[in-house]
């Protein structure tokens, strides 16, 4: 009963992965038979390609900002909702709600919200007296922050994970600490935080990988506003760059090399993440 899975893994996952590594050493252009070019693709990407390092930088900033802010938002809201406030279940459902929007749809929606002239955000900013709000989608400085804000908006998934963990935490510890006169701050660091660290680690790992692979929302955002890649290539995410190379210019060998660099980067970051986790994640010191 697992024969199809073995076949699927071979045909669609590990087989192509190896072929892709092979193709990254060729000048494959999807037309003529590829010929071996050694490390030329990697050399070109790392030292001659005008867009490679731009997209690395864009993706790095995006990942760092959106992962950090997303974790802060999801953890804060989860802590607020974990208190015994009325309509808690409804709050949880509605906070989660924006995450069900397809990434493509939210990309289009947020490109509209961030329109410099007719957008909701600048309309509101002008109403509260900001004379010259940022030009967001048209601005090389503000287009990437706009995408970060859009990404933080989807914090509901991580929030649900945190809430589930908070509700598993033993209540009696909190009650005992309150009797001993511990402050809320102290209770958080001594009781809640250690119990949450595995979930923080989980959310951190998943959202980091997700943000490095981001494509749909960035493609939709660019298509609806400033053009794919954004003003002055300010939102040229790594995978957008890869997509353009592979399916815009049919530089398949080059794209395969980019894909392998991404794969190695994700694997390395995940490994570092796991190694560092032993210092701060409870129960990870195996």
């Amino acid at each position, binding site marked *: *009963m697992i024969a199809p899975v073995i076949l699927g893994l071979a045909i669609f*996952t590990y087989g*192509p992965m190896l072929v*892709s590594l092979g*193709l990254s050493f060729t000048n494959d252009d999807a037309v003529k038979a590829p010929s071996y070019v050694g490390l030329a693709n990697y050399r070109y990407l790392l030292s001659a390609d005008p867009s490679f390092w731009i997209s690395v930088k864009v993706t790095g900033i995006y990942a760092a900002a959106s992962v950090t802010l997303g974790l802060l938002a999801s953890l804060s809201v989860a802590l607020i909702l974990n208190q015994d406030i009325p309509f808690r279940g409804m709050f949880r459902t509605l906070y989660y709600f924006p995450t069900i929007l397809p990434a493509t749809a939210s990309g*289009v929606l947020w490109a509209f919200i961030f329109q410099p002239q*007719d957008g*909701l955000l600048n309309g509101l900013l002008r109403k509260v007296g900001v004379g010259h709000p940022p030009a967001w989608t048209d601005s090389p400085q503000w287009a990437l922050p706009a995408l970060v804000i859009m990404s933080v908006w989807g914090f509901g998934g991580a929030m649900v994970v945190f809430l589930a963990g908070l509700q598993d935490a033993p209540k009696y510890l909190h009650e005992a600490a309150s009797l001993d006169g511990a402050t809320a701050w102290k209770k958080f660091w001594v009781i809640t935080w250690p119990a949450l660290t595995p979930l923080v680690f989980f959310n951190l790992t998943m959202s980091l990988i997700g943000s490095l692979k981001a494509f749909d929302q960035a493609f*939709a955002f660019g298509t609806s506003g400033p053009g794919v890649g954004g003003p002055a290539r300010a939102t040229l995410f790594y995978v957008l760059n890869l997509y353009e190379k592979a399916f815009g210019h049919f530089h398949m060998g080059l794209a395969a090399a980019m894909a392998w660099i991404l794969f190695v980067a994700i694997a390395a970051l995940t490994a570092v993440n796991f190694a560092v986790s032993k210092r701060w994640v409870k129960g990870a010191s195996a």
Partner: protein
Amino acid sequence: MKPGKILALAVATLGLAICLAPVIWLFSTSLKPFGEILRAPTALIPKHARPQNFTDFFSSFTFWRSFANSCIVAVLSVLGTLASSIPAGYAFARLKARGSGLVFALLIASLMLPGQVTIVPVFRLFASLGMIDTFYPLVLPAWLGTNAFAIFLMRQFFLSIPEEMLEAARLDGASEGRILLRVAAPLAKPAIATVAIFAFLGSWNDLWGPLIYLNKESSMTLMVSLMNFVGGSGTAQGTPWNLVMAGVVVTVLPAFVLFAMFQKTFVAGISTTGLK
């Protein structure tokens, strides 16, 4: 209520208002006449609601064709995901054939792989088979168990079924296939529903795959058509955002309907696995 709780409630309400504003504004814009967008971009309620935005959107490209394409691809993907993940999940949980541990580890590891690392050879494979502009590249992988999340979820569920129930059927001389079909699968309805919902949305919402494999207008799915419409809809007055938002509403509708019907499944699915 204690002051602390009132404060928490106030902050939660304010935060929620900020989070939901974009969605509310999406619906309101989809009903505004074009002039109102320019005159009063922040108005939440359209002065003169204009449902024709939707019919205009439907008639501005081959909408119904794309809609049908999206439905066909999504349904075939769901069927494929179920047909491959139910038996595989059962086998990983219960049969433990030699080497199945290794296969399972490779399967879970594939969750971490960026899809981009396989796209060039897989694209060339489908191209060499003449399958560009067909649905095969979008559907076939699902039938071969590439949805690792679905298999994982089914396996976790089958692990929770008491062994005695299966043992009783085995003593009656039933084959494993029959046990799965008659005993295990009927018990797994909640897990099957979860897998079906997520597989449907995964396919319906996908942009990357259809963008790569579908070039002809007649074969495009709704997400790609929406991109084409948005990218090519600019007029002298600017983008007709009211029509674009009507289009976005149509594309998010299946997710909204499924969410309204199966809220608990969504939230439980996320909190047990953390995966979308």
